[in-house]
């Protein structure tokens, strides 16, 4: 990117002045950040969203926020599937969000097969004619091959039951993550065909610059950003705002 800017300045396309160069740099960054941009696909009947990511990146919270927006702002009926059957009280956490968002929850006991939960959630959504079903999964480090295999299996279960689903697989990435974020995205994309990134915890000092590398190298766009702990703190990703924020102090 820096190279491209240098070329343009040398070629006289961009005046060699501080402000102009910075403005062009923001444009270039925003362009990269906008790679492969597409809205979240809700066309399925029901539309199936699968949420994946490393431990503690904010998957469950993000699902709560998405459910709230879909049901309160778009008036859609939402079913949540508590596919994190590993961590203690993960289903209770999702139940609380389902309650706040007015969504229905499908859950199983701890230690149950996450694929079965996904199956039940999609089934429940079909039977009740719900518009959207969002499936949570347990956090997993991308280096744990067996857990990544499990994730691929959950995805297969969903596809088998409803061809074309999951229509949207979202990877949550913590904005404070360093270079490791790129590895996470690469391996999660291999296991679960990730369609987009949700960049969480942007309300801190971290700016999440790693998503530029993810968009640039893997062609996976950021779709949503999380900026706080309340239900409203979820916004569509705006490449220009993001580029501006990256360069601001």
């Amino acid at each position, binding site marked *: 990117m820096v190279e491209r800017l240098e070329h343009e300045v040398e070629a006289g396309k961009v005046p060699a002045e501080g402000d102009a160069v910075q403005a062009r740099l923001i444009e270039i960054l925003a362009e990269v950040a906008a790679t492969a941009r597409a809205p979240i696909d809700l066309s399925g009947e029901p539309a199936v969203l699968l949420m994946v990511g*490393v*431990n*503690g*990146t*904010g998957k469950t*919270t993000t699902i*709560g926020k998405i459910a709230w927006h879909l049901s309160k702002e778009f008036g859609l009926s939402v079913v949540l599937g508590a596919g994190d059957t*590993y*961590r*203690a*009280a*993960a289903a*209770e*956490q999702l*139940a*609380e*969000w389902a309650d706040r968002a007015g969504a229905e929850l499908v859950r199983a006991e701890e230690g149950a097969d996450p694929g079965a939960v996904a199956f039940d959630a999609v089934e429940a959504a079909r039977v009740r004619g719900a518009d959207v079903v969002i499936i949570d999964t347990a956090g997993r*480090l*991308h*280096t*744990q*091959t*067996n857990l990544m295999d499990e994730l691929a299996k959950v995805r297969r279960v969903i596809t088998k039951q409803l061809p074309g689903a999951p229509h949207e697989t979202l990877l949550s990435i*913590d904005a*404070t*993550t*360093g*270079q*490791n*974020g790129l*590895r*996470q995205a690469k391996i999660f994309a291999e296991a679960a065909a990730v369609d987009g990134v949700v960049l969480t*915890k942007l*309300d*801190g*000092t*971290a700016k999440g610059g*790693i998503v530029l590398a993810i968009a640039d190298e893997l062609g996976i766009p950021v779709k949503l950003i999380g900026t706080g*702990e309340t239900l409203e703190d979820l916004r569509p990703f705006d490449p220009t705002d993001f580029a501006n924020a990256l360069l601001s102090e």
Partner: protein
Amino acid sequence: MFDQLSDRLQATLSDVRSRGKLSESDVDAAMREIRLALLEADVNFKVVKAFTKTLKERCLGADVLGSLDPGQQVIKIVNEELAALMGGTGSELAFASSGPTVILMAGLQGSGKTTACAKLARFLREEGKKDVALAACDVYRPAAVEQLVTVGGRVGAHVYEKGTDADPVEIAAWALEQAKTERRDVLIVDTAGRLHVDKDLMEELADIRKRIKPHDVLLVVDAMTGQDAVGVAESFAEAAEFDGVVMSKLDGDARGGAALSVKAVTGKPILFASTGEKLEAFDRFHPDRMASRILGMGDVLSLIEKAEQQIDEKQALDLEQKLKKNQFTLEDMLQQMRQVRKMGPLSGILGMLPGMGAMKQLKNADIDEGQLDRVEAIILSMTPEERANPTLIKGSRRKRIANGSGTRPQHVNQLIKQFDQMRKMMRHVASGKALDPQQLAQMSGGAPRPKIRRR
């Protein structure tokens, strides 16, 4: 953990080692490589600069360049400095002289506080046989209290909780009173995750701290944090005046920059490292041993400690007797296997052996623990008689065992064959005869080896 950094440093140092004599420019070149390796690992740039400066000064000292084996000296210095960077020989928790020792846990959202609380409780219980209690002060995140109650129950720690309607400062103070009356040895206080820029919540953390006067404040840091780690640690140092760090998620492939920078920036040591999904995956952090591991020199000390923790002396003696009399049974094999597995995943154990990092075939290999599960399942499906005398196992018994363990008859056969060969070999050893190399080869070739998968 630290794999990429480890690779680069080892490559640089093996180049240095291969030279008989070192010139100043050789040292310069090596320092440049080390600097790059550290920067790529997300280590804070100021820390890198200071680190390579000290390193260079020491390496250029007359006693190094003039010595018979300068390469070896340089490696020794890098090892020492790397250990010093992470905190020297390691630090300890401070314990109260009387009454409960209070440990306050703090950190960003999702750094792994609640899990770390339970793991620490388990660690202290196992190590010191202490009565540990937990206090649930995360009233913000949905189901955080339930999570702590569940994991607390799993590690046998009592959890003081007042639901989510009470004020966290009050809960902490109340839990401390309870812990005093009930004469607990340790009280670990879990708090809500908070951003270091959130004024109100940081103030709340400071209030909890003032109210309960903890003996130790621990900051939980995600090992995957990038350059932001330093800013986070500095802010928490101010509000919570933490004493040490728990590094979480060290089992990933994070390059460990956060781990290498935090001590240098805040002066606070890393006390514990959390290295896996299971509650046992938690241990003291030894900077000197970690430095050796990064440089591929192994960590035999930790391995011995782990073995000592898990292996019961009396059982070991019994086993020795059995081996001598050649009475080793499948039951004993099962016990052995379980003891080794208690030490943690095999891949972790391999990482502690010197020189393992350099072995290409093990590098990206992933040992399939499922194979070991299968062996366990097969033995568990046998009757006590069958375990003592596997020759009993013929057609219908074999079928039953295979059905019972969810395997196939040939798997049962394989296991019995492997066990027979093991017995033969043991007889040889016990009788003092030298081992026939052909037999050894047969044994390793004929046995169902753990499947090694390449990534």
